[in-house]
């Protein structure tokens, strides 16, 4: 009887008694009813405890089964929890600031300090405040024990007050604090052991001393999701940190991300409308006077967009929201596979326990009662799996996060086990228990009393329905496995194409050193002189084949950009005339292994005294010189007051860092002829042996030249390219793992099915052999049965994979989502694996002694 019936009957009973006895005679009936309900609740709880105790006793008797079930569910739930926590961190979590729902980002690109001040001063009607951050970057931090690398984030002085973040210790920054520093809580614990007297002490960033004014609260990492700052410095510190570069003055040094706080009652749309004229004015000012009319018109037509940013700024969110969803689907399928595996084990267990269950049913336990008992066992297993999953989740999520290079050094800081997480794990564990327990429990409780009590292996398991279930379970498992395997093939092929395309550069043994001499005080001719000496020193090192340098290096994504003119080039409206450029050293193209289509490379002779020259990329030549040979033609910067033509002396094959990118218009000029200082110097060297062995001596060579010169990073060309495809590598690595797991589970599943069939049909096989069946014939018999389950599963899986392929359309490169080659190869691999798994039981069947087999009957 269910709760509702019981309640109704109680009400009727009480009403009848009231008519017999009168209300006064019976006293407080509401209380009587409430007490009666309490009796039922206690009985229910009591029953639950009894079920739990019984379930624990039963499970303790089967440690092998429990271990397999808990480990496989634990892996499945742990993987789901790990992806969930990454999604929570990167996509959903709100910033720990005051009223985060009122924050908006400027969908505007980065801003200069000048535009930030303009916006700040002239937006008071709609925005309470605007804060700015330059993002975190690596710097040497010295707390007194020598320099160590740390993440430094430069922020506007009102950053903390504007966000409503109060200091855990000391105070936060104020608007006019040129040399104050706020430490992150984690850094304070790490570098100062959480010492309370840290306020007022000095911390050096590079060479420059800052006074620690406070410590941020533990839950605050900054507004850029994924970045973990160690130290926050005020924007005024920029002049000290970047000496000689007038970053704060130039309207075109765009390095700030803005975050506004809406006034109470103001919508993002209204604020955006109000600020649009200002944004257009700033854009026009930024572009300068030389802008063509059509560009000016476009700028005037632009509308500012403000996007709600209660969960912070994140370039990671844009990049990772789709991949994480795909990964989430994959881990969910993985868990479903694990649950089905446990379900198959439960079928086998139910067969063994048939006698016990039948006895319980025979003495009158209701079917629901038996199902409840069996489900209690499944829930117990599943929650044990969930607990194991929670233990696994943090290290797994941290490992995944560390593959995302932009998440910094300490991604585990960002991952939390909190309320939503526990809720998620509880829900997933319950769902897993339902999948792995419900069908076996329903089936076991529908026992056939007579056969069950006899507990003969034949009669207990020969029911056609139970054989069907086993086959269907194996089929579904294979189908799901195929989806995962096809997915992993797809991502692996895609990654292969992303890493094996023609970049236009010979990456073999190519190393890039990023050197920053600005901090050491070099500028102008001195800087050129230093670069000359460094080039000579590095180039003559044993183990170095050749060396060159450029301002932006290769595969860094850094570039300079300008409006260009060219001989014979008409720029009709709508035709772009901008191009990227780089200042490079002598023999640049020969050294990096780029292919010159025509003309020559730069040499030492292309110096300040020589005629000004340039080398253009093939795409540049196609765009600017569609109808003539570019060699010997002139190009020039449109916005220069006085036209200074550069003569094209060579055309080089396009250099790309991403296979998904269209070739861009590039031109290159010799640094010795450039007027401006290099922003940074990236030395490119080709080593003779494995590049890893050269890193230490390269660093030493720079130090030997001048100790003060800072080596920012040393990477091989392959590494640089890989940073660019970290998301693709993350997905490929994970889907490979899941594919492998799926294959293992499928193999276990088919093995189980085959072994079960062989056991069940031992007698039959004995008879067949006695009647003259050969061993290969017996093996074929076993294989045929497995194949009957495998073939529909694999076919259904291929269909499902083809349909699901659309989900990953934007994530794979040069691969059709339903690629026939991928589906076929995945199906073949899975078929081979499942037949391989059936091999062992098949061989056992073939080696049966007919006499023994028949005696068993």
């Amino acid at each position, binding site marked *: 009887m269910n709760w509702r019936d019981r309640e109704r009957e109680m009400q009727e*009973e*009480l009403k*009848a*008694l009231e008519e*017999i*006895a009168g209300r006064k005679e019976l*006293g407080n009936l509401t209380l*009587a009813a409430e007490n009666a309900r309490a009796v039922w609740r206690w009985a229910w709880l009591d029953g639950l405890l009894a079920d739990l105790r019984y379930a624990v006793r039963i499970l303790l008797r089967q440690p092998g089964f429990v271990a397999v079930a808990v480990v496989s569910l634990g892996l499945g739930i742990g993987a789901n929890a790990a992806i969930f926590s990454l999604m929570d961190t990167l996509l959903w979590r709100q910033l720990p600031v005051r009223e985060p729902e009122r924050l908006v980002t400027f969908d505007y690109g980065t801003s200069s300090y000048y535009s930030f001040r303009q916006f700040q001063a002239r937006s008071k009607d709609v925005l309470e405040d605007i804060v700015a951050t330059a993002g975190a970057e690596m710097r040497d931090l010295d707390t007194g024990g020598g320099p160590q690398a740390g993440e430094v984030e430069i922020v506007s002085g009102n950053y903390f007050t504007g966000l409503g973040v109060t200091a855990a210790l000391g105070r936060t920054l104020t608007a006019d604090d040129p040399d104050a520093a706020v430490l992150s809580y984690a850094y304070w614990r790490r570098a100062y052991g959480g010492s309370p007297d840290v306020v007022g002490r000095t911390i050096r960033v590079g060479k420059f001393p800052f006074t620690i004014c406070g410590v941020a609260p533990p839950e605050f990492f900054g507004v850029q999701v994924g970045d973990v700052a160690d130290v926050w410095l005020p924007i005024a510190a920029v002049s000290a940190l970047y000496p000689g570069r007038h970053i704060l003055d130039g309207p075109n040094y765009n390095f700030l991300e803005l975050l506004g706080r809406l006034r109470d009652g103001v919508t993002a749309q209204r604020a955006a409308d109000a600020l649009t004229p200002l944004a257009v004015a700033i854009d026009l000012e930024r572009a300068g006077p030389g802008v063509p009319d059509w560009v000016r018109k476009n700028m005037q037509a632009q509308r500012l967009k403000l996007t709600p940013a209660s969960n912070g700024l994140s370039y990671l969110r844009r990049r990772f929201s789709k991949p994480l969803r795909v990964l989430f689907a994959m881990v969910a399928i993985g868990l479903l596979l694990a649950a089905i595996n446990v379900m198959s084990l439960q079928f086998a267990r139910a067969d063994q326990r048939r006698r016990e269950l039948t006895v319980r049913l025979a003495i009158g336990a209701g079917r629901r009662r038996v199902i409840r008992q069996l489900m209690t066992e499944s829930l117990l297993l599943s929650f044990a799996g969930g607990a194991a999953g929670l233990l696994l989740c943090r290290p797994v999520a941290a490992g995944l996060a560390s593959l995302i290079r932009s998440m910094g050094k300490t991604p585990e800081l960002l991952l939390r086990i909190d309320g939503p997480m526990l809720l998620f794990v509880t829900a997933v564990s319950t769902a897993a228990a339902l999948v792995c327990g419900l069908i076996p429990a329903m089936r076991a409780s529908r026992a056939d009393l007579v056969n069950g009590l006899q507990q003969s292996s034949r009669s207990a398991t020969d029911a056609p329905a139970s054989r069907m279930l086993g086959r269907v379970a194996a089929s579904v498992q294979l189908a799901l496995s195929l989806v995962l395997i096809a997915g992993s093939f797809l991502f692996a092929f895609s990654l292969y194409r992303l890493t094996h395309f023609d970049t236009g550069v010979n990456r073999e043994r190519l190393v890039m050193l990023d050197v920053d001499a600005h901090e050491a005080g070099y500028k102008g001719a001195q800087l050129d002189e230093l670069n000359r000496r460094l080039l000579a020193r590095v180039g003559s090192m044993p183990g170095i084949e050749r060396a060159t340098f450029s301002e932006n290096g290769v595969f860094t994504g850094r570039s300079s950009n300008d409006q260009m003119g060219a001989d014979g080039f008409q720029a009709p409206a709508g035709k772009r005339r901008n191009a990227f450029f780089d200042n490079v050293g002598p023999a640049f193209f020969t050294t990096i292994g780029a292919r010159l289509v025509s003309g020559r490379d730069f040499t030492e002779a292309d110096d300040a005294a020589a005629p000004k020259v340039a080398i253009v990329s093939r795409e540049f030549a196609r765009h600017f010189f569609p109808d003539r040979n570019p060699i010997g033609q002139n190009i020039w910067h449109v916005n220069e007051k006085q036209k200074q033509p550069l003569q094209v002396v060579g055309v080089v094959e396009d250099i790309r860092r991403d296979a998904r990118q269209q070739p861009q218009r590039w031109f290159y000029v010799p640094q010795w002829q450039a007027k401006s200082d290099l922003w940074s110097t990236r030395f490119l060297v080709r080593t003779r042996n494995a590049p890893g062995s050269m890193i230490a001596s390269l660093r030493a060579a720079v130090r030997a030249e001048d100790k003060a010169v800072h080596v920012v990073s040393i990477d091989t060309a392959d590494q640089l390219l890989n940073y660019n495809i970290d998301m693709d590598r993350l997905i490929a690595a994970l889907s490979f793992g899941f594919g492998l797991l799926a294959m293992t589970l499928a193999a276990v599943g088919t093995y189980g099915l085959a072994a079960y069939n062989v056991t069940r049909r031992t007698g039959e096989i004995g008879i067949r052999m006695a009647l003259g069946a050969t061993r290969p014939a017996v093996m074929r018999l076993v294989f045929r049965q497995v194949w009957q389950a495998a073939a529909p599963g694999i076919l259904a899986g291929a269909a499902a994979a083809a349909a699901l392929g659309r989900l990953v359309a934007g994530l794979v490169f040069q691969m059709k989502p339903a690629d026939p080659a991928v589906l076929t190869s995945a199906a073949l691999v899975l078929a081979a694996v499942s037949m391989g798994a059936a091999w062992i039981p098949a061989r056992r069947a073939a080696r049966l002694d007919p006499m023994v087999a028949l005696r068993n009957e």
Partner: protein
Amino acid sequence: MDLLQGTLDMMVLRTLLMGPLHGYGIAKAIRTKSGESLEIEFGSLYPALKRLELKGWIAAKWETSETKRQARYYRLTPAGRKQLAAEHSKWAEFVDAVTRVMGPLPGGEA
């Protein structure tokens, strides 16, 4: 008079030994039997009935009363009969033991 823990359950079982009764009938029967000195609150009797029903010692069914009214009548089940026998002897032992300890007060003073 306060009821000792579990005494109510026992008295309900004992009352039902005479034949099926509805909830109010049980309360009335206990009151009459005790010479009006035990006033059973229906609010405590009713949950006790539900408890005994859950344990399977009594069972209930809708029947028509002598006054032609529908009511749920409780009766003892075989398991309830066994339970009553066990509790009855335990109760007798308990009363016996307490009586022996208490005895008559010396000196005849009251």
